Structures are given as C-alpha cells and as structure tokens.
C-alpha cells in the first residue's frame, strides 16, 4: 500500500505552508529521517523528514506551491516492490477532505473569527505572480464565479484546465469570496483595501518595481490588520530613569566570567533587562498576563515575552518563555541565539508562536517614543524608546538623568486602563530599582 505523505503541521496552529523545495525527486529512495522537502511557514523555513522508507512514487504538490493546507497530500511513497501504478488508488482521494479539515487546526485565539475565511484551498498566487490557466478554464472560472487563485491545476506544469474547474464546481470549492470585494455591508469584515490596479494607476508605469509578497509579509499584513480591526487598543506611556540600570548592567557585565578563548559568559543589553522587568511586572500584576477569547479570559501562569526582531524583509517575534523565572544571563543568551537564527529565517514555529506579551524596542534606532500594535494572543505590547540624557526634576531641583520612554499598548477587552497603568508602574519599579530583578 503506497504511503501518503501529507503536509505536516509544524506547529499546533499551522494551517498552511508553502512547499518551498523538494530535496528528492520521483524515483528516489528515501529512508526514515531523510530530509525530503523544505516547507516555508509564515515566518520560517522548516525541513520535512521522511517517516517511512520507500521510493518517492509521485510528487503531488510541486515545489514553489504556496498555501498548501496542513494534511493535504504532497507526495506518495512506494513501499518496497510496489509499482507506481498503485499510486492511483492512493493519490486522488485525500486532498479534498484535507482542505475541509484545515480550519479546525486553528486553535490560537488570534484567528479572528470575524474575518471571512476563503473557502477551499488557499490562494496560490496572491503575490501577483502569474496563474497558469487555460483560456477556457479562465472563462469558465469567471462564468461560475470561481477564484483561480483558489484552484490547483492538473494540466501540464500545473496549469489549471477545464477538468479542474469542473472538479471544483462538483466539489463546491474555489468560490471567489464576494465579501472581499464588497465588504462594507458586513460589519465585521475587513474593509477592502484598494485593488492592485487602483494603487498602480496612481503611479507612472516605469516609476516602480513590483516585489511579490513572501509568506512573512503576508502574515504581518494579515495579523496586524486583524489586530487593529478587532482589538480595541489603548496606550499608557511612562518615563523610566535608567541610570541605576545602566550602572548595574556595567557591573554585571564586568563580572561575567570569561572562558579560555576570552569569550564572556554573557553580555547583558538594556533590552534583556527590559524583557526581564516586563516579565516580573506581569508576575506581580497577573491580571494583565492574559489573552482574550470570546468565551474566557485566559489567565497565563507564566510570562512568555515575545521580542520583536527586525530582519530583512520583515520582523519576527521569538518568545522568551517563562522569562520571569530566567536569570538575565539566560535571557540574554537566548535572545542572541534567537536574533541570529531569526535573521537566517531558521526559527521554529514553536519558537515564535504564542507568548503572553511582547517587547518592541526601537531605542537603538534613536526613537524617543512610539506605540506598537498588539499581536494576538498577547494582551499587551511594550514599545521601548531610546535611553537619553534628559533634564529631570528631583527633589525640586533640576537634574540630568538617563530617561527611557515606554508606551504600553493593551487590548482593552482584557486589560483595562487602570490595570495597564498598574502593570506599567510595576515595570518602572523594576527598571528604576534593577537590583530587585536579581532577587
């Protein structure tokens, strides 16, 4: 019996991914554990390993295919002695049900139920790249209100042909979502953004270049739009004096052990200490360490702090888990590793999915103050500005201190104003009395 290889769920919340690359071809022999393909999820590239041994009988989903649903058939493995003709029975059936099952995988509260989910398989070419479809298929799709982007082609080189349209009509899949185009009526639906044509005609034809969106860009757009449309944000700002923290940091870094190569065991940054301070503040104000779901308040027992890392082409938020429990040195080293792997896009989904809050630090870029967008399932995000010498009034006297402005954005559904202020006060306490972070 041929073995079906399906799109793996690389994380509990993964709904779909892009089949970036096949590392095997039809006819290749594989053993369990061999890396057979690379899958690009929202933010990372993952390797898929074979779980059985056999011969790759058929590659069903071509390399470069986007939006492959979890559990969708991607290849068929033949067991020893099996003939390729056996594939027929193995291949065809599972693809359709997989598409239907996929939404169930979305367990994260973040998946805003209000947004109209596209029916059927996910778009394959939302990045504006050409969809290959026969003229007749195009016309049939338009006559029947089907979205070619939502269809998989079975013609030469994956071209969408008449039989694919007929199959979609028979299965009732691939309907173009009219809501996306005529949304205003539906209150919860996202407002339609300008069509590509509308945007492009505002510019001279040779005055720009088009860069197709990658998975990360699409995820950023989707999640942040969803956030701003579904989460009632409010903002609390506070100034924190940093002098004590900077002094402690210098002291701690100076005390760091060095190994025989002269490498220090840790080198704390202000950011590392900010993470720790926020984690401890959430421990102290547990009512703010929450996530919103329609039915319940999710009260988190640990502070998992996401840290926004800017990388070429976008950003990603790896999570320092249980940051309230971790020593600064551990946090610092974890961040260094995350930062490096984030830039290589090698983070695993479980390393950047989830979290209970986030820190976005633009201090190193000289930003004084800004406010960030809450990234669900978080209820809060702390926007951190630069520490700079500012005149302050101390005991009625004008003095100079290193001051850092921070702004907390919160989801008002679960963190009210006073609670946000309380959290921020706790945070400020740790920053200004940094020794308290060490005990």
């Amino acid at each position, binding site marked *: 019996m041929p073995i079906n290889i399906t799109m793996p769920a690389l994380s509990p919340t993964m709904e779909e991914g892009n089949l970036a690359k096949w590392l095997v071809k039809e006819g290749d022999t594989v053993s369990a554990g061999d890396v057979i393909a690379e899958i690009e999820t929202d933010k990372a590239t993952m390797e898929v390993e074979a779980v059985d041994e056999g011969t790759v*009988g*058929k590659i069903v989903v071509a390399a470069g295919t986007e939006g492959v649903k979890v559990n969708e058939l991607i290849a068929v493995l033949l067991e020893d002695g099996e*003939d390729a003709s056996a594939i027929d029975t193995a291949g065809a059936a599972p693809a359709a049900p997989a598409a239907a099952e996929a939404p169930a995988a979305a367990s994260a509260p973040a998946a805003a139920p209000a947004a109209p989910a596209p029916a059927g398989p996910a778009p394959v070419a939302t990045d504006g790249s050409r969809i290959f479809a026969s003229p007749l298929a195009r*016309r049939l799709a338009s006559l029947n209100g089907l979205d070619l982007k939502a269809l998989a082609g079975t013609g030469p080189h994956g071209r969408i042909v008449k039989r694919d349209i007929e199959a979609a009509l028979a299965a009732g899949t691939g309907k173009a979502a009219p809501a996306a185009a005529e949304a205003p009526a539906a209150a919860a639906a996202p407002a339609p953004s300008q069509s590509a044509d509308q945007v492009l005609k505002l510019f001279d034809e040779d005055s720009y270049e088009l860069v197709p969106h990658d998975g990360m860009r699409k995820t950023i757009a989707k999640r942040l739009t969803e956030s701003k449309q579904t989460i009632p944000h409010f903002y609390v700002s506070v100034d924190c004096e940093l002098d004590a923290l900077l002094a402690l940091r210098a002291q701690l870094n100076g005390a760091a052990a060095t190994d025989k190569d002269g490498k220090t065991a840790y080198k704390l940054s202000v950011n590392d200490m900010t993470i720790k301070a926020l984690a401890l503040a959430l421990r102290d104000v547990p009512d703010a360490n929450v996530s919103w779901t329609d039915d319940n308040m999710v009260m988190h027992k640990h502070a998992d702090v996401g840290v926004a890392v800017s990388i070429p082409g976008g950003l990603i938020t790896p999570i320092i888990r249980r940051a309230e429990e971790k020593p600064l040195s551990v946090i610092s080293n974890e961040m260094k590793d995350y930062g490096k792997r984030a830039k290589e896009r090698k983070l695993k989904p479980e390393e950047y999915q989830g979290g209970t809050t986030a820190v976005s630090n633009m201090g190193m870029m000289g930003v004084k103050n800004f406010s960030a967008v809450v990234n669900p399932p978080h209820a809060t995000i702390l926007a951190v500005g630069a520490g700079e010498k500012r005149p302050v009034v101390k005991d009625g006297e004008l003095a100079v201190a290193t001051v850092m402005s921070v702004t907390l954005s919160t989801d008002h559904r679960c963190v009210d104003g006073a609670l946000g202020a309380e959290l921020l006060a706790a945070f400020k306490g740790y920053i200004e009395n940094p020794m308290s972070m060490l005990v």
Partner: protein
Amino acid sequence: MADTNYDVIIIGSGPGGYVTAIRAAQLGLKTAIVEREHMGGICLNWGCIPTKALLRSAEIYHYMQHAKDYGLSADNITFDPAAVVKRSRGVSGQLNGGIGFLMKKNKVDIIWGEGKVSKVGEVTVSKSSKKAMEPQHPAPKGTKGEGVYKAKHIIVATGARPRVIPGIEPDGKDIWTYFEAMVPPSMPKSLIVMGSGAIGIEFASFYKTMGADVTVIEMMPTIMPVEDPEVSAIAKKQMEKQGIKFLLEAKVSQVKKGAGGVTATVETKDGKKQDLTAEKLISAVGVVGNIENLGLEELGVKTDRGCVVIDGYGRTNVPGVYAIGDVAGPPMLAHKAEHEGVICVEKIAGKDVHPMDKSMIPGCTYCHPQVASVGLTEPKAKEAGYDVKVGRFPFIGNGKAIALGEPDGLVKTIFDAKTGQLLGAHMVGAEVTELIQGYVVAMNLETTEEDLMHTVFPHPTLSEMMKESVLDAYGRALNM
C-alpha cells in the same frame, strides 16, 4: 541462452505497437516487440502510407489532366499501373525498413512470430499461422525466434482486419479488400465500393481519378457517416461532379461472380432492388479487432463487440495485460493507437499521465477533395445539449485557394455559445488534412474563440480560412 525476461512485451508492431515500444524503451523499460508478418503493421504496409502514395500518383495525374487550367500543356498523358503500384510499395518498404532501424536504435528486441499470452506475465511466440500478404517486405535481421518470453507487462497491439460480410467474402480476384485494392494488377474499368468510410472513399477517389467507373454503396444517409453532414454533403457533391455515383441508404444483399466481373444486388431503403455490374468490388465495410488466438479468452480478458475492453490507460481487467490501438476499440486510427500506447507505458512507468481523451482525436480522409475533422459535429454538439455558435468559411473567399485553383471547400467551426469552447472543426477541400492540427492544438490548449481571433494567421495561406471561420461564428468574418 538468450535473455527472455522483459519489462514490457508488445504484441504487434503497427503504429501503435512500435511507438509504444520506443516510448517504453525511452522510459528505461526492457522492451520486446512481437511481429508475425510486417514491421509497421497495416498502416505502413497495407494502409495509411501506401494508399497516400497511390493517391499522390492520382493527384498528380489529375493535375496533368488539368494542366491547361494553369496555362500549361501536356499531351498523351498516361500511366503505368505497375509503376504506380511499385512506387507505393517502395514508399512502404522504405518505412518498413525504418521501423527495424528504430527498434535497433532504441534497443527494442524484435521477436519474429505469432505471439500469444500463454499466461499472465508470459508470451509464447510460435510460427505464424497466417499466410503473409504478398508482396512482403523482408523481415528485419537479428530477430529473436519462437519460444517462451516473460514480461511484467504485456501489451496487445494486434490491430484489426477487414470486416467480412457473410456471402460477400473477398476472394482476392473479383471481390477485394484493401489488400488487393492496394496492388491492382491492372486498373479496373468499373468498380463497386461497398462502404463510404475513409478506406472506401479513398479507393473510390483513387480509382475514379485513374479512370474507372465507380459506384459507392453506403448504408447510412450520408457518405463518410462520422463526418459533419454538411461536410459530407459538400464532399459528395464534389465527387459526383467527378463522376462517382453514390447509392445511399442502400446495401448489397448479394454478389454474383461472372465471367466479366461481379454483379451486385443492391437493395435501397424503399425496398427496391437493382443489379449493378462491375469488373471489381471492394468491400470496405469497416474493420474488426484481431482478438483471436492471443489467449485472451483463456485469461478472462473482457472483450466487447470484437475489441478488448480497456480503461483510459490501456489496462484490461486482467492485471499485467494491456491493449492499445484498433484491437482496443474505436476510433481505429493510427494516431489514436500511438497515443494510447504512449499513455499506457507512461502509466506503467509511473509517470503522471492523464487518461486517453478521445474527444480530440482528429480524423483525415485523403479523397479528393480532402476531409479533415476533430471534435463534435454540429448535430452531435446539439445532441450533447450545447447551445452552439457555428462558423463557416468557404474556400471561394480565400486568396490562396483561388490561386491554387481549389475554390471548392469549407471550413466549419463549432463553439459552445456559453463558454467559447471550440467543440469541433470540420473541413473539406484542398490540403485540409494538413490544416486540421491547428484546431487540434487549439482544442488541447483549451483556447476559446477569443484566443483564435487574437492569433495572427499568415497570409496568403489556406489557414486564414481557419480564423475566418472562427470570426464567422461570432458574426465577424472579414472576407465574405
């Protein structure tokens, strides 16, 4: 001891069989082909190819007779039947030898003899029980001989043979099949052709041009019954102009052989009987699959109306036994056999292949005027429930046709009014057999009328009519 184990053994080296063998070899399958009589089968030896050679002679003869129309003169135009036949055999022989070369080049073993599927996975080859049709081209060198051969996959590609009507059995002297009609010892003065399918009509056309008095008898109400009735009617009218007589909705109930040839009793639909006398009678009432003596019955291979029943990949109900081409059912055309065979072995090799789609198989008949078509006829399209748009463009509106001196003919296209899908194309006139593939490609690529209208066709060519016909279907023809 020679190796007798193969991945694939193909029985029959006709156009289906030998192409299948080459494709199998290309796919890395160890392949052998069994042939008892002639490499290239009927197509190369007694069908498609030698008839085209005969018809070419007839065509040139026709032009010579009409040299005056082109401002030329030619006197004492005659022909030598033996030389015409010799040329035809030569063309056939050249290609026959070519198959041997192709087999060798692709390392396909040729097993000479009559193949039988003695059991699943085994072919027994013995001396041919059939008397070879003469004249026969020499068998290729270096073939394997009688014996038992093993193969994981056995593909039956044994083709078909002329259908025989009881009481009108061909005798090779007065009652001919295509075999005898291909190699006439002399040109008959008069001829009755039973059946107006491609074979019957091509011989009618050939012998008429070569001077015979020809009567064609057809049971159906139109000649070339599979063609679009409009095209059939135009072809019939043109051939009647040349002097061919047609008796439609008629059948030969009896044939008597006499000293001066044959007398056929023809019964028409209204019950009237008439006797027709001619030097020769060609029986061209279709072909039947060669399914006998192959061991198929013993293996329980399903057959239906004289053909092996297969799925879209040439698979029979018995695993490991396949059939392609004429023996696997209509349309009985060489190009259908070839494609079926390629699909069959690609599937065997595990390639991603779609099943045979019989809706886009073109058909060509090389009578004068030529007839070519693909897809649904107008009545069939309507029967299938389509709301159709029909385009027509006559040869008289085409510059190249006039320049060629071929102003008679029609290009007809049929579109689904709803979707613009090209459902069928039907042509009659000069060179249409070389034009039809344009529409075949268009259909396979699923073009709509729009794409065809956007395509630039070269001027001056007959192909411009193909575009005009499409334009006409949408009321936009330019040159009429």
